[in-house]
């Protein structure tokens, strides 16, 4: 079965590019435009989602808050943060909160795919459902 990647980004164009970059790989994409939607999808498809890609700057619930909610409800789901603006302090905060990777836009296809694969492998190692 294909692995699922959940993309949380308020901009449809960004979601579209990520989908494009992941097409033809072993990953399938689920999209969420805001944190609430992401939480709903996670609740319904928890078993199938392997990796979450999360934007930082979003109206409403920000990326920082979204990450902390997801970490709380699904502590083993690997999260990759994708940001338009690199901020060292923020990056450190994210890494401390358990995020597996911190990627700056624009990111090339190969790099993104590699990052998602690495994250998915991590999920497999630690997922209690797989044990």
């Amino acid at each position, binding site marked *: 079965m294909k692995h699922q990647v959940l993309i949380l980004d308020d901009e449809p164009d*960004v979601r579209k590019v990520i989908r494009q970059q992941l097409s033809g790989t072993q990953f399938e994409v689920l999209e969420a435009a805001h944190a609430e939607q992401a939480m709903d999808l996670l609740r319904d498809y928890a078993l199938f989602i392997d990796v979450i890609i999360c934007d930082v700057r979003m109206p409403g619930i920000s990326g920082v808050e979204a990450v902390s909610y997801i970490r709380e409800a699904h502590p083993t789901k690997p999260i990759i943060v994708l940001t*338009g*603006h690199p901020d060292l302090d923020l990056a450190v905060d994210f890494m401390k909160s358990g995020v597996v990777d911190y990627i700056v*836009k624009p990111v090339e296809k190969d790099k993104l795919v590699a990052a998602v694969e690495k994250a998915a492998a991590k999920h497999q190692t630690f997922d209690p459902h797989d044990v």
Partner: protein
Amino acid sequence: MATRDLGENLLRLAVHASPSGILIVDAGGEIVFANEALLGMFDYELDELLGQPVEVLVPPVDVELHRKHREKFGARPVPRAMGRRESFGAVRKDGEEFSVEIGLRPTEVEGERMVVATIIDVTERRRIEERLRRYDEHLEELIEQRTQELREAQAQKEQVVERLIQSEKLAAIGTLVSGIGHEINNPLYMILGTAEALQDATDVDDCRQFGTEIIEHCRKISGTVTNLSRYARPGSMDNTQTVDLNDVVEAAIESVHRTKRSDEVDIVWTRQPVAEVPGRPDELQQALFNVIRNAVQASGEHGVIRIGLEERDDSVDVMVRDNGPGIPEEHRSKVFDPFFSTKGPDDGEGLGLYIVRQIVSRHGGDIQVTCGEGTTFTLRFPASPKTDRGETS
């Protein structure tokens, strides 16, 4: 009451009991009398001194000088009191030198001129004075040292402040860059992704579609850059209107009133009939707003800000005067620099006056700052040509 005739013995006793040395010298400079205190002081027996020149009591180096002084004094004897704080060298029998203070009183005994000298040993006093002087010097040194330390501390503090201002600048650049980063990196990402898709595409229609998307994203970035540089360099001045600066000032004041702390100050202003100027009302209002808000922030509680309009030959001046602390000399050349701010990061990014200067120069105007009691910013704009004004003045 007549003076009682005291016996000679009694007088002698009194003279010998005096704690000061008493010496009587005749006109030739020979010692004719010395009391016990003097003998003790110089360590002589009386008969060793009697008949000796007074110079035996003077250190060898001073003997010549002393003799000259004595002769001069003999020619014009005037009493000289003690306590003039002037000391002389003296020498004991064994050659040890010490300091004395001397009072002189010329007198006449049985037709012969004599001098009675009163002498006190001031060695101890001199030593104490010397010590006091040294202590004083030390104190001065100490004070000098402390002042120096304080000065250095002050200089260090100024450096820290300077560095803080620098880091505020960096913080401001940070926020700016983070905004720009987001605005530019997102469409860049879209371009990248689409170009990647283009590489793999085989269908011509798909390729066309990808091309169109890339162009769209490029336009987005270029729009962002244009927006940013609107303030960074003089843009074109198309679409200018004829503006009454009274309206501009009024609108700017109104916006300032909506900012924090503006209710603590008094903004004094009345409309003035002045020539209109060609310009962009929104930009002019922005410029005035920035200047007035600075004035509000500078003057704080009980501040009074006076705004005046004045027409000159071919221009109109807007003056904004506050009663704040003024701008230190060394900052005056920097206030128009981007990111120069002395305010906390929450209160200022240091872009206000930079933008003002851009706007003013784009309008062909000029901005001046003067500090007297408080600060006055004067913005000068060229007036519209008289024929445009539709009035006959």
